[in-house]
């Protein structure tokens, strides 16, 4: 391979954005948190009512820091 071909090959794999990578790395923890939220929604009627009324507020009050994807999963569970 000449230098130009090497350069093309080396440029083809830039680093993935670190924020993306970190979010994927934290996936197991995020799923555990989500499972805990869903279990509490099923077991705690008051929490479920609060989450139905204002999901983000209810989660914040309960100490859950949910990202958008987790919020979507919780909304789907509430339907």
């Amino acid at each position, binding site marked *: *391979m000449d*230098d130009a071909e*090497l*350069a*093309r*090959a*080396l*440029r*083809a*794999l*830039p*680093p*993935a*954005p670190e924020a*993306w*990578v970190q*979010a*994927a*790395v934290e*996936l*197991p*923890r995020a*799923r555990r948190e989500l499972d805990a939220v869903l279990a509490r929604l099923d077991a705690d009627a008051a929490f479920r009512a609060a989450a139905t009324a204002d999901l983000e507020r209810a989660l914040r009050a309960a100490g859950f820091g949910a990202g958008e*994807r987790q919020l979507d999963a919780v909304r789907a569970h509430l339907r």
Partner: protein
Amino acid sequence: MTDAELVAACRTGDEDAWAQLVRRHARYVSAILRGGYRLGDADAEEVFQEVYERAYTRLESLRDPAALRPWLAQLARRAAVDRLRRNAREDVSDEVADRADAAAAAELERLELALTVRAALAELPEHCREIVDRFFACDESYHVIGAALGIPAGTIASRISRCLAKLRAQLGGRNSAAAGVG
């Protein structure tokens, strides 16, 4: 750890192994989505997470743990096509998906070559790995590289040139070994 060992460790719930798995293949997955399927940043970010979510939940179904990378590539391709279909008008979504797949095929071949080059780069001394990666993959200027590595910017070009020569030699050695020569 090999990919097979990483998969085995992940299957026991080892989160450090999961982190390694993510980081090891992040460039490749990202390149498939952005370079292969030309997803914009917002879509690429979401699909990147989808790929790893699918990998995490379906890891038990991977029959050959040594084939982790092509399996991730398949997950990435499917997720990218799903996203393109969703973004397209319903009446042309199949056409859009087929065109994207065809366009991505050539890029995916180039990525295989790129992976070979990166594997050879990984066997070079760290100073070469660092400077070559920063200049080509990270697109950093001589000035930025010099400041980061504490070396004069005026020497960067010649250092890169020497490292590329080593990289070519490393690739040539790999090719010889593969051909059973020397």
